[in-house]
C-alpha cells in the first residue's frame, strides 16, 4: 500500500476556487499538497522541492500550461504531469501527451476520473522507481569485484542468475574458495520476488552441530546450558526471504537429516520447544566440495543433495576465466588507488605477466589481496614486479612445467611451513578460509615436517 503522506502534489491553476477545492480534496486523501497560481510560481516551487505529481491547467496567465509541461520534462522525467483542460482546448492537452504529460482531465473534472488517474500515476511512478532500483542493483552487481569480467565463463554465470532468480527453486552454487559464491547468492535474492524479504546467511562450515542447530531453529529458554533467553532461529527470521547456506558440504549426517525434514515440510520447532513453527523461505546453498563424489561415497545424503540442487551454478576458478585476470587486476588497482589517494596509473607489462601466470588458488579474493598490498607498497606511478608479493616467494619459472595440482600442493605446504602450521594464519595468507584449507590439506595429503 502506498502511503499518500509521502506523495507531494502541486496544483497549478490561476483560479483561486480550483486551487482550494483541489487541495482540500487531495488533503482529505492524505496527500501533501501545494498550489501555484502561475507557471512562474510553479517553476519556483518545483525548483525548491520534489513533487511527485503536478496537476496543471492549460490556460494560465503568462507562460501557459503546455509550455510549463515541456519545461518540466526537460528537467525532470520523473514528475508526473496531469493536464487540466476545458473541452474547447482539448487539442492542446492531447498534444501535451506527446510531450511527456501523463494524462489529461476535462474541466469540470469527474471525481471518479481524477481518483483513477491519480492512483494510476502513483502506481506508475512506484513501478518506475522499482525498476530503477532493480536496474541499480543489477548494475552494482555487475560492478562488484567478483563478477567483473568479460569472459564467456562469467557471462554464463550472470545469465544463469537471471534465469533462476525469478523462480523459487533451490540453487546450489559451486566454486572454489574466493570465487564469490555469497555474492551470487545475494544477486539471486536481489533479483527474486523475495527481494523485499530478508536474506539470511548461515555458515555451516565453522560451527558444531549443537550451535548450528540452535542457530537454524532457534531455542527456547533453558534449552541447553547458556540458553538464558529464547531466540528465534535463522529459518524463522528468513520468512518471506532467502536462506543462504554457505559451505553446506560440511554439515554432519545428523544435520543433513534434520535439514532434509525441514526442507520437505518447511516446519520445525525451536530447540527445547514443542511448538511447530512454519516459515516460507527459499534455499540457496554453496559448496566448494565435490558433493557428487561425497554422495557416491555416502558422506552426503543423496535425497538432500537433489533437494538442494534443483539448479546448479558453477563459478569458474579465476585461472579458468579467459581474459578476466588483467581486467580484475586493473579494476582493483583503480579501486585501491582511489581509496588510498595514490596516483598509480597502471600495472607494468612485466608485473601483469606475473599476475597472469600465477594460479590464484585463493581466486578473486587472493588477487584482490595481492593488488591491495601492491598499492600499499607502491609510492606512485606504476605497479612493477617489485610491488607484487606472491605468498612466500612464489617462483613462476620453476613451476611453469608443473601441473596445477602440484603447484597448489607445493604452494600450500610452503605457506604452512612458513607459518609454522598456524592454520588461521596460513588460510589468511592463501586468501581462503580454514575449512577450505583443511580440505585441501586432506586432498593433497600434505603433512607436517
Amino acid at each position, binding site marked *: *500500500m502506498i502511503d499518500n503522506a509521502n506523495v507531494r502534489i502541486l496544483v497549478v*491553476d490561476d*483560479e483561486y*476556487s*480550483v486551487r482550494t*477545492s*483541489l487541495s*482540500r*480534496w487531495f*488533503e*482529505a*486523501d*492524505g496527500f501533501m499538497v501545494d498550489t501555484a497560481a502561475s507557471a512562474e510560481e510553479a517553476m519556483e516551487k518545483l525548483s525548491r522541492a520534489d513533487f511527485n505529481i503536478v496537476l496543471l491547467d492549460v490556460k494560465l496567465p503568462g507562460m501557459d500550461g503546455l509550455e510549463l509541461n515541456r519545461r518540466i520534462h526537460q528537467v525532470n522525467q520523473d514528475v508526473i504531469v496531469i493536464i*487540466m483542460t476545458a473541452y474547447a482546448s482539448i487539442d492542446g492537452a492531447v498534444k501535451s501527451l506527446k510531450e511527456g504529460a501523463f494524462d489529461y482531465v476535462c*474541466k*469540470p*473534472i*469527474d*471525481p*471518479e476520473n*481524477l*481518483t483513477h488517474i491519480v492512483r494510476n500515476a502513483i502506481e506508475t511512478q512506484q513501478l518506475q522507481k522499482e525498476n530503477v532500483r532493480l536496474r541499480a542493483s543489477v548494475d552494482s552487481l555487475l560492478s562488484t569485484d567478483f563478477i567483473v569480467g568479460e569472459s564467456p565463463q562469467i557471462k554464463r554465470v550472470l545469465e544463469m542468475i537471471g534465469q533462476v532468480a525469478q523462480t523459487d527453486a533451490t540453487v546450489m552454487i559451486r566454486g572454489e574458495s574466493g570465487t564469490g559464491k555469497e555474492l551470487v547468492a545475494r544477486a539471486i535474492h536481489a533479483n527474486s520476488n523475495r527481494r523485499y524479504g530478508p536474506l539470511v546467511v548461515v555458515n555451516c562450515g565453522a560451527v558444531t552441530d549443537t550451535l548450528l542447530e540452535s542457530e537454524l531453529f532457534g531455542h527456547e529458554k533453558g534449552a541447553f546450558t547458556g540458553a538464558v533467553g529464547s531466540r528465534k532461529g535463522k529459518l524463522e527470521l528468513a520468512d518471506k526471504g532467502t536462506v543462504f547456506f554457505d559451505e553446506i558440504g560440511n554439515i554432519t549426517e545428523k544435520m543433513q537429516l534434520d535439514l532434509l525434514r525441514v526442507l520437505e515440510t518447511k516446519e520445525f520447532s525451536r530447540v527445547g520447544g514443542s511448538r511447530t513453527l512454519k516459515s516460507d523461505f527459499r534455499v540457496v546453498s554453496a559448496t566448494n566440495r565435490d558433493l557428487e563424489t561425497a554422495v557416491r561415497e555416502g558422506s552426503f545424503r543423496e535425497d538432500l543433495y537433489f533437494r538442494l540442487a534443483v539448479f546448479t551454478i558453477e563459478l569458474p576458478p579465476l585461472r579458468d576465466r579467459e581474459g578476466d585476470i588483467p581486467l580484475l587486476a586493473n579494476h582493483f588497482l583503480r579501486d585501491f588507488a582511489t581509496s588510498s589517494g595514490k596516483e598509480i596509473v597502471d600495472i607494468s607489462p612485466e608485473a601483469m605477466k606475473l599476475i597472469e601466470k600465477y594460479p590464484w588458488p585463493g581466486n578473486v579474493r587472493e588477487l584482490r589481496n595481492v593488488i591491495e598490498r601492491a598499492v600499499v607498497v607502491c609510492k606512485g606511478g606504476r605497479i612493477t614486479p617489485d610491488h607484487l608479493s606472491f605468498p612466500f616467494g612464489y617462483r613462476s619459472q620453476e613451476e611453469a612445467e608443473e601441473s596445477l595440482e602440484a603447484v597448489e600442493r607445493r604452494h600450500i605446504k610452503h605457506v604452512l611451513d612458513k607459518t609454522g602450521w598456524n592454520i588461521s594464519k596460513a588460510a589468511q595468507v592463501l586468501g581462503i578460509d580454514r575449512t577450505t584449507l583443511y580440505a585441501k590439506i586432506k586432498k593433497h595429503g600434505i603433512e607436517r615436517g
Partner: protein
Amino acid sequence: MGHGKVYLAPAAHYGDALLDALDGLVSGTFNVQVERMSPKLDLAAAYSTSRHQYSAENLMAQLVNIAPGDGKILAMVDVDIFVPIFTFIFGEAQLGGKAALLSTWRLRPEVYGEAHDKALFMERVFKEAMHELGHAFGLKHCYTPGCVMNFSPTIDHVDEKGFKFCPVCTRGLQSGH
C-alpha cells in the same frame, strides 16, 4: 451524554424515520448530544445558471455563518451541489472544523433511473452523513475496505462501503476528542 454537540440541520423534508435513526447513529457513534435545527439557507443565492447546480462554496459560507457556537453542524440539502472544478460532489466538510454539508440528491435511486427505494436511500444518507461528520471530527480518507471514511467518487462506491468506522478511524475519533 458526550462532551460535544452536533446540530442536525435538514434543509428539506426527510421524514422522522430517517432523521430519528440518524440522530441515534450520530449520538452513538460520536458520543455527542444531537440537536435538530432547521437551517436558514438561501438556496437561490447558491444557484449557478451556467452549471444548473448549487454552489457548495456558497452554501458552506452560509453554513459557517449560521452555525451555533457550541457544536458542529451537518446541513442536508436535497439539491445537486458542485465546486467549480468537479462535476459534482456528494458533500463537503471543514476538516476538523464545525461545518459539514451533505447533498442527498445523488443518493436517490431515482437519479440513476432506478425505482424509488426508501431503505437504500436511508442507508446511503447514513453513510455520507457519517463520512462528512467524520471529516468534521478530523478524519481523512481511509483505505480500510468497507470503512465509511473510504472516499466514494460514485454511488457504486457508496453502496460498497459500510456506515461504520474501522478500528483505525475509531481510534482517530477518540483521540480527536
